[in-house]
């Protein structure tokens, strides 16, 4: 039995090389996963992590090298990879549906089993409704429940926590520990250092498709790990803090954005947000509390039952076009379905929203485009072989940067950022955070939605906390601490009696 021979690795990769249309994603990579270990796989955006995983699972063929698997692998891929139109329970049991005695799918049992399993992950959604109606984070938990439930020897998680907020992250880490206790090996990809150090035993660092380090994680100081990932010296990195946000911004001017009483039933109800030029307002809340919907309501992408939006005191029609013209831009949360235009080049994706401004009489100017695109690729350090590369070929983080560039080149007055650093590596994250800071300093009004509390606390001047689609409180100055936010977010902590129903926005 292989189980009594702990020396037999469950996955072994030797000298694997993988090339995509000229891009070398993996270059002579060796990688070993021991039975029962939690192995962190880290690296900058585009370092080749997801590619390595797809090689391990056999989705990608290799150009050279050898892959040996000694067990069943179950994978949660980076982008939520389930079927949005199918029900939650159908997704969970796809391929292993419970049958009745006629060999037909037992739907009642499938629903019941799914509901019960999901309860263990803190999800209480209707399992017979289409998966797509769930928030991204909830979908991620469904994917997790599905993958973990399979009878696997290895569970691979590619950035499982990127769309989760603190409470869900804890749940997930609990699951990981449980799996570990059962002797299941885990490959864990994340850009969040805290998580890695809390749960991982070993680490493999990829840089530009090369394995630059494999070894125990605990002995590796954080700063050294980051230095390995970035290929920069420890000293260089030490000069930065945990996040790259600077000091608070002055924000005493008149509000540039006044959104009042935004209501879109049943998701948000009477949400009001005000932002001044140069101010970063954070939007905090649990998964599904209505943050995304609030942002969408502001930009006019969500049909609303009520509420007004004023930009610099003038009302704006509730359409994306009108909002864009008035100077509002939004970086969408789900970059795959709402962000990139996969077939188009990086250049075209960047200039998309600003196209009319870069054209004369409807005829586009290539030279103007090139100038802007080059500038943004440099400024945001987007990793591309050329601006003409298809955006679909970029790594997740680089796609995110392309989208940021798209919005920045419209020169907006108000920028709504829904999870702007999701799936972005440490280096890029710092760059994006610094950028937000810089933009605010230049007078831009920013609405920042993030599931990472640190990011919100450091980055925002003021926090609006949502709960169940309504504003549960606003925090400023001294109140901007972990404890305060958690209290406001989690109703059961602060709720002495019916505070929920009594929140100001409900009594319009």
């Amino acid at each position, binding site marked *: 039995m292989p189980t009594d021979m702990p020396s037999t690795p469950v996955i072994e990769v030797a000298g694997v090389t993988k090339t995509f249309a000229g891009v070398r994603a993996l270059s002579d990579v060796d990688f070993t996963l021991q039975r029962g270990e939690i192995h962190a796989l880290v690296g900058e955006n585009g370092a080749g992590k997801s590619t390595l995983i797809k090689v391990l699972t056999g989705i990608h063929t290799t150009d050279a090298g050898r892959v040996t698997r000694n067990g069943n692998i179950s994978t949660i891929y980076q982008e939520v990879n389930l079927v949005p139109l199918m029900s939650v329970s159908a997704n969970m049991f796809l391929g292993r549906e419970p049958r009745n005695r006629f060999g037909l799918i037992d739907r009642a049992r499938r629903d019941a089993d799914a509901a019960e399993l999901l309860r263990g992950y803190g999800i209480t959604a209707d399992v017979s409704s289409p998966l797509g109606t769930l928030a991204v984070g909830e979908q991620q938990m469904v994917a997790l429940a599905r993958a973990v439930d399979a009878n696997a020897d290895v569970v691979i998680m590619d950035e499982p926590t990127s769309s989760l907020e603190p409470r869900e992250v804890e749940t997930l880490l609990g699951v990981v520990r449980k799996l570990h206790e059962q002797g299941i090996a885990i490959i864990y990809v994340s850009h969040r250092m805290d998580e890695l150090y809390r749960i991982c035993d070993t680490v493999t660092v990829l840089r530009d498709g090369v394995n630059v380090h494999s070894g125990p994680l605990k002995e590796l100081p954080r700063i050294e790990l980051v230095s390995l990932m970035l290929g920069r010296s420890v000293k260089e990195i030490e000069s930065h803090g945990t996040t790259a946000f600077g000091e608070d911004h002055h924000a005493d001017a008149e509000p540039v954005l006044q959104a009042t009483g935004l209501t879109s039933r049943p998701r948000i109800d009477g949400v009001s947000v005000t932002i001044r030029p140069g101010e970063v307002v954070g939007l905090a809340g649990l998964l599904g509390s209505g943050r995304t919907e609030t942002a969408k309501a502001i930009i006019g992408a969500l049909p609303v039952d009520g509420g007004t939006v004023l930009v610099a005191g003038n009302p704006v029609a509730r359409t994306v076009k009108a*909002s864009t013209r008035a100077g509002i831009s939004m970086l969408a949360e789900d970059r795959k379905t709402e962000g990139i235009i996969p077939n188009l080049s990086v250049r075209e994706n960047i200039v998309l929203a600003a196209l009319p401004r870069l054209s004369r009489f409807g005829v586009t100017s290539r030279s103007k485009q090139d100038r802007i695109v080059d500038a943004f690729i440099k400024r945001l350090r987007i990793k591309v072989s050329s601006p003409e590369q298809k955006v679909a070929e970029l790594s997740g983080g680089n796609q995110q940067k392309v989208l940021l560039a798209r919005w920045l080149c419209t020169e907006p007055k108000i920028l709504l950022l829904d999870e702007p650093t999701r799936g972005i590596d440490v280096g890029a994250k710092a760059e994006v955070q610094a950028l937000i800071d810089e933009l605010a300093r230049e007078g831009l009004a920013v609405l920042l939605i993030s599931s990472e509390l640190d990011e919100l606390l450091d980055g925002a001047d003021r926090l609006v906390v949502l709960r169940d689609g309504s504003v549960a409180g606003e925090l400023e100055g001294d109140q901007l601490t972990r404890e305060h936010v958690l209290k406001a977010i989690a109703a059961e902590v602060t709720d002495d009696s019916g505070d929920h129903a009594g929140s100001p926005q409900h009594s319009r």
Partner: protein
Amino acid sequence: MTQATTQAAPSTAVSAAAARTRWLQDNGVYVAVGVLLLFNAVFTANFLTVGNFTTQLVQAAPVLIVALGMALVIGTEGVDLSVGAVMALAAAIIPLYLGAGWLMAITMALVVGVLAGAFNGFLVAKVGIQPIVATLALLVGGRGLALVIANGQLVQLRDPTFLSLGTDDVFGIPISVLIAGVLALVIAAVTNRTTFGRQLVAIGGNRKAATLAGLPVTRVLIGVYAITGVLAAIAGVLATSRLAASDPADMGLLMELSAITAVVVGGTPLTGGKVRVLGTVFGVILMQLVRATLIKHNLPDSIAQMIQAAIIVAAVYVARERR
């Protein structure tokens, strides 16, 4: 417990082959046209004559004009099944207004084309009906309407200026071919060099993202279908003048399938987000040459249809996108 080991082939050979397939993918349709020309030059009597080439171009012109519009619609991830019916409508309109002069007749036909197209666009963009069904309604009803207008009958046309559209040429180039060529250039410029064109492709590539990016999605879609409608009407006018008769019963019959085939054979994917105008031109020429070759070699209908099927599959096979 499963054990699996995969070993890969050396990478240099792979990438050379990859480059070759990539090249074929982009240029397959041109190669196919070349091969067919070569075949005909060797095996078909009287093929290499000016008259023959003129004939092929004249016959291809209306199809090309329709296919140009179809390429745009397909670029938005749509499709327009009503183009043949719109051609029939244009044909039915002409004799009604020819009394008021050829210019009036043509103008009215084009107006009907724009309206029909805008109607399709409205259904797709505003009402949110899937393009294939939205335009199916006009495919069914449009030809019926044309027949109602014409009282179901073919009308012989005698206006010399109007008929000269189908018979005259400029510096040896037939007028219809000239018009088709100019339109191809215009459409190429529109797709590649204008905001409208780039927006169109973006909408086809990811409509949700395009909407969130503040693109005028509705306006672009209605515009694209309207353009397709007017192009179909132009094709209807030219085909009518060449036939010297208004024949709404048969005008443009199955044109939607010919146009879609040409567009796809020319390398524009039906999944949207990409428009290849030159490819479309060659797609039309390829299908025209196939038909001509089969007729010239006097193959029976049965064999001709089967060979056409094989050539379509072969052409699309080399040009297909790899996974």
